[in-house]
């Protein structure tokens, strides 16, 4: 079904009836702050919609496309996503902790302060997407690339990959100033031409990965309680 401007109530009725969206197309629909925990979004296109602060925790998203949609502070924790494409969306402050995503493309979007802690991303591509201060703590990234043809490399400064498992990831030319890779397992990753000033690799285990000579890989000091708060 197709929903356009001012058809929010119809769209929500459909959402409740089907338990999500299936094969639908939503354009200019404002669903800010909607509650859809555990819903299903399958083969759906959302264009210029407002889903800011929506709670879609534990949702299953398959073959969905988000275009110019406001996903600011959306909650998708523990969601499962497959073949999802996100174009020119705002994902700032979004909470995607524990998401299991396979075949994900994020293009031309803003994803600053996005939380991807404990996420499992497989075959994902972040293009022209600002991921400044993004958090990938204890995430598992397999076959993930971060690129930005405009800037020469993805903006990932002050991003955190603490305790993450990075396998076959491309950070080529990325801006990783002040990024944290403490205790991360880094296998077969590409850091060529990346800006790594102030990046913290203490306790990281690089295998088949070339890091700049002199990178400090010594184990980090044990965390103190005072540092936690």
């Amino acid at each position, binding site marked *: 079904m197709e929903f356009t401007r001012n058809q929010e109530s119809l769209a929500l009725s459909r959402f409740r009836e089907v338990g999500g969206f299936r094969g639908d197309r939503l354009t200019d629909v404002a669903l800010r702050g909607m509650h859809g925990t555990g819903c299903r979004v399958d083969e759906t296109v959302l264009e210029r919609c407002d889903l800011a602060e929506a709670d879609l925790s534990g949702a299953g998203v398959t073959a969905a496309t988000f275009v110019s949609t406001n996903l600011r502070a959306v909650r998708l924790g523990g969601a499962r996503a497959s073949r999802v494409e996100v174009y020119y969306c705002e994902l700032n402050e979004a909470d995607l902790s524990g998401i299991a995503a*396979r075949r994900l493309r994020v293009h031309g979007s803003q994803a600053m302060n996005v939380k991807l802690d404990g996420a499992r991303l497989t*075959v994902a591509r972040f293009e022209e997407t600002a991921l400044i201060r993004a958090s990938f703590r204890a995430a598992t990234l*397999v076959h993930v690339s971060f690129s930005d043809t405009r800037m020469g490399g993805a903006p990932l400064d002050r991003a955190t990959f603490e305790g993450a498992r990075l396998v076959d990831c*491309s950070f080529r030319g990325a801006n990783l100033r002040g990024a944290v890779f403490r205790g991360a397992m880094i*296998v077969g990753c*590409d850091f060529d031409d990346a800006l790594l000033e102030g990046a913290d690799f203490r306790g990281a*285990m690089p295998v088949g990965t070339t890091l700049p000579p002199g990178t400090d890989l010594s184990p980090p000091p044990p965390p103190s309680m005072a540092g936690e708060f």
Partner: protein
Amino acid sequence: MADPSETAAADPAEESAHALRASLSVMDREELVELGVQLLQTYVVEGLGPVGRGGELPAPNSARAVDSVGEETFAGLLRRLKAERRGDPILEKFIVNGEHIQVRTPMGNVDVTEYRRPTAPAPAPVGGGAPRQSVPTPSDSIYNRSLYPQADRGAAQERSRGASEPQPAAAPSRAAPAAPRPAAPPSEPARPGPGPASPAPQKDAKDEPAQDKRFRLIELD
């Protein structure tokens, strides 16, 4: 006999396997299973190559092409779709040039991705070290020979001597302008003979500063 540990340290493959074992041994069983599933699914079942080659186009009819989300670039996606659906009016509106994408609109072509100018200056052409024809030097300008009495004097001396000598002896003064000639516009070197006294170049020289200023302003605008 060589010590096995020394051999392991010397062999990079063995070394990386050792490091992998060390990093995997600290993981929980569940984490290991998840990672194993992810790796097998990606590299064995789907047969993807390393991420560095993700931008490569799969064959249009291959199974990979059907499900390549996250694997190819946005430009690659458009290229593939254009190849698959030839004549599609919407796809025809996209102009893909490398990683630069434009859309045809009634108002002209609009950039979807920003065009990146090459940062390095264009390489100089072969033999680019030679001065341009517009910069008069004794070696490349036959019109300004009078400005360089030394060269003229030398030429005169050579000419006075040259009646008995073979022709190549007088060549240096002419051979030099011959070199940059191909690079110069054809109208400039086409004038035959030494014509420094012709009024046209002098007039141009007078007017040049004013014109230069005017054009410079236009260029600045």
